[in-house]
């Protein structure tokens, strides 16, 4: 994480403003080329979205999507991080679970949506579980590798701090090593993975909200598409894009909060 990347502040805001203007410019060019019936003008969509911000219906859709993403990302991270650490540090556990991980990792998790609907019904659970599944797999692989490939000298460094009076407490020593060395060492990689997974999670959520639900930004987009209400459809797309960007930024903030010393972590 470079200082510039982690910095935030005016330069980052200016960068976002430039990117936003560039996207608007491209959008306008495409809209002029395709015609407003196919791709509405950007200001029409922005005006439409701004008009909906006070609408309880729109806010309900947005809240449902945010809730599902938060649960899914949180649960995926909470399950994958400790398991990844355990796999990275236990050769026996890794021998059992790593082949399962490698076999299932390339399978698109969205394929399980119908099965999740059958198992969990049509409520909130299958959407959040699908997001959690995507997040879980990405974070598991990265955390396991970070724990496994840690420079052994960090372990030696910790070993020199362990008091001679507790030399016989092997379990306590192992748990302390995990807490003070392995977990904080793997955390920056896991949080970066969460940040990357958040983009995939929004895509997966859109698909999950396209089925068997009447709430969420994904539903709003598909519903407006079916009604050929293009400004509303594009408002939903814009809102979902902004949600993805916000979650990406939130993960960046989380990384800075949880891993403040990450700049010194060369290994």
């Amino acid at each position: 994480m470079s200082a510039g990347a982690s910095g935030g502040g005016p330069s980052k805001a200016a960068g976002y403003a430039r990117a936003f203007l560039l996207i608007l410019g491209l959008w306008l060019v495409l809209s002029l080329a395709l015609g407003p019936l196919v791709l509405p003008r950007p200001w029409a969509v922005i005006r439409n979205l701004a008009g909906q911000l006070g609408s309880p219906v729109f806010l309900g859709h947005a809240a449902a999507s945010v809730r599902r993403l938060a649960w899914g990302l949180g649960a995926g991270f909470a399950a994958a991080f400790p398991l990844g650490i355990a796999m990275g540090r236990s050769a026996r556990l890794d021998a059992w679970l790593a082949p399962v991980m490698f076999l299932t990792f390339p399978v698109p998790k969205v394929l399980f949506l119908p099965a999740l609907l059958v198992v969990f019904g049509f409520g909130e659970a299958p959407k959040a579980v699908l997001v959690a599944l995507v997040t879980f797999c990405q974070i598991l692989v990265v955390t396991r590798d970070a724990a496994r490939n840690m420079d052994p000298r960090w372990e030696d460094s910790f070993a020199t701090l362990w008091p001679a009076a507790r030399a016989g407490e092997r379990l306590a020593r192992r748990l302390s090593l995990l807490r003070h060395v392995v977990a904080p060492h793997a955390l920056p990689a896991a949080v970066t993975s969460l940040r990357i997974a958040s983009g995939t999670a929004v895509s997966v959520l859109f698909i999950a909200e396209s089925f068997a639900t009447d709430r969420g930004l994904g539903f709003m987009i598909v519903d407006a598409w079916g009604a050929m209400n293009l400004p509303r459809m594009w408002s939903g797309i814009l809102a979902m894009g902004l949600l993805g960007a916000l979650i990406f930024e939130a993960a960046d903030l989380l990384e800075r909060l949880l891993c403040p010393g990450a700049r010194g972590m060369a290994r």
Partner: protein
Amino acid sequence: MGARVTARGLGRSYGEVEILRDISFEIPAGGSLAVVGSSGSGKTTLLNLIAGLTPPGAWEGEFAVDPPGAGRSYLMQDCALFPWKTVLANLELPLALARVPAAERRARAEAALSELGLSGLAGRYPGEISGGERQRIALARALAARADLVVLDEPFSAVDAIARERLQDAVAGLLAGKGLTSVVATHSIEEAVRLGDEVLVLGGRPASITARFGNPGRCGPGFRSTEGFFRLALAVRRALEDA
């Protein structure tokens, strides 16, 4: 209070590969030993053994630290401080592991930082401070943990020449002032001569002691500018070339 360290006929192998052979030395409580040798000459293997990282029974010969429960602190070359912990948290870690109450460990850590003039760095992360400051903080951690034996592996390799000399003087003064026993491994002949009451030269395959030099004058005033310093440095250099 420093620990007394005794090694007689020490040897260490990794499988079929013999790394160290017949290493003998004695460091009195409060004394210091400097070990020099080319890269791959077994210095770090010897330091790992002295620091307690090598499991008992994994070496040949006799090795003893007296008192047996003496606290050891190992300032490793690049991994002395954990980059994900603040300076203060790094200092408190060995105390937390030793179950020292929170208030006492905070007080001891702050006192050690203050003693080395590093109080201003308490809230910083190791990645935000210089290499020299990191080594001094690692030394402050040894003080906070009340180590009896301090083991230093290439302690100032990441520091510029002038700062290096200042740090050597500061560390030598601090260790002597506290009466702590120390072992330092270094590539630098001047550093070995400045820091060791005795200087061992390692060489050969497997590594053994090819020369040893007493250094009684090292604590005298202005030692670095004396003829004795240059004579000894020259003698160590010749021994290294022959090794």
